[in-house]
């Protein structure tokens, strides 16, 4: 396992530096937006990565409720945390991009922006709940909230669907016309981000496992001490 981890770390580092080169230097400059457009290679892959992580959170929450396997719980926690990080990147890069291009920081009522924002809020409240829980069965409660959150997402999507949107339409599979060179850079970046997310989640997973072991040991200690 140690080997696998090192290998993954190596691949991630290589991919990330290659992707950086591709995004900032190799990719063609966009005609109307200029160099600002390069933020695209961070913005979009982050969004996709966050979606994947939230999906993992949803699935592992269901698995936890059925199997009661603590590993599923840790996976749910970790994917939500890392997902929130990537989602934050989207929410920060978006306005940075929007300011020069649209002339505003935020386009209220926009479907993509709003869905992302709500997604971000939901998973933050999920993490807050986990912190504040005093229950002996926090994983169950957290899983329930995760499922509620996931059920909410399509409803949010439809509710905003009604508005017209300022945000660009999907490029992949949406019949959009993206320069194939740009598409290539985009995919390389996405691969790099997915590797990074995997690496982060793995580290966080191991950390959480270790933390729980330590806590159990501490519990024993404090109990023995407390009996005095």
């Amino acid at each position, binding site marked *: 396992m140690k080997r696998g981890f090192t290998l993954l770390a190596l691949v991630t580092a290589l991919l990330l530096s290659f992707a950086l080169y591709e995004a900032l230097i190799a990719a063609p400059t966009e005609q109307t937006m200029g160099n600002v457009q390069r933020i695209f290679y961070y913005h979009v892959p982050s969004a996709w990565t966050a979606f994947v992580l939230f999906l993992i959170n949803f699935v592992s929450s269901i698995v936890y409720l059925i199997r009661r396997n603590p590993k599923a719980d840790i996976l749910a926690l970790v994917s939500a945390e890392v997902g929130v990080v990537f989602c934050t990147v989207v929410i920060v890069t978006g306005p940075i991009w929007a300011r020069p291009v649209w002339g505003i920081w935020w386009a209220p009522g926009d479907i993509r922006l709003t869905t992302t924002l709500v997604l971000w809020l939901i998973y933050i409240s999920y993490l807050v709940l986990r912190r504040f829980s005093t229950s002996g069965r926090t994983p169950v409660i957290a899983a329930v909230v995760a499922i509620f959150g996931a059920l909410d997402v399509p409803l949010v999507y439809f509710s905003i669907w009604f508005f017209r949107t300022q945000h660009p339409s999907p490029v992949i599979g949406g019949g959009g016309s993206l320069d194939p060179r740009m598409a290539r850079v985009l995919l390389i970046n996405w691969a790099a981000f997915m590797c990074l997310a995997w690496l982060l989640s793995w580290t966080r997973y191991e950390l959480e496992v270790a933390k729980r072991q330590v806590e159990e040991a501490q519990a024993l200690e404090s*109990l*023995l001490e*407390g*009996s005095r």
Partner: protein
Amino acid sequence: MAEIQLNDYAVTADGVVKQFGRFAALRGVTAHFAAGKLYVILGDNGAGKSTLLRTIAGLAQPTRGTISVLGTTSIKNLRAQIGYMAHPSLLYDEMSGIENLRYFAGLYGVPEARCREAIEAVNLDPDLERLVGQYSQGMRQRMSLARAILNDPKLLLLDEPFSNVDFRSAHEMAALLAKIRDRRETLFVVTHQPGLLQSIADEFVYMEAGKITDRSSKLRTTEQ
């Protein structure tokens, strides 16, 4: 065969661990308790007595290990046969005693007539219109006991029934427990005043730091 053997025990705990976040309140409790006896559970503050009782009552699930009660591990299906009394009264302060019991009788599907019986059993007046919130502590504890015995439970779990109760009420309650034991029901009583039950108890169970450390049929002399 195994089924029958289990049934001889009112409660069987097997390696029960109960964790609250980073803190383990029960750390591997393994024990068998025969039916029809009165057990007094003793131990320092934080030893895990209340937690053990709540786990037996099915109010808290063990983090690890199993508890089987009256021969089954799915305590949920058995709730009609368990009575539980906690330190708080488990009663609505804004209703009278009989109104409280009527509501709970509904939950147990027990006939309403049973409510009066239960109240009389604890030496209170079923027609008292005063709200439970205006009861004295001793009355409240007794009404709480009435609620716990409403369904004629086979297994009665009492958490510090005498704490903050005055001397007279405490003795009355102890006498009542003796009567219940004599009906061959199983009782678990957590208390810091074991002297009150000295003559009634069948066994004293000592807990320490989330474990059962000792069981004996006599009270240790230091704690009398």
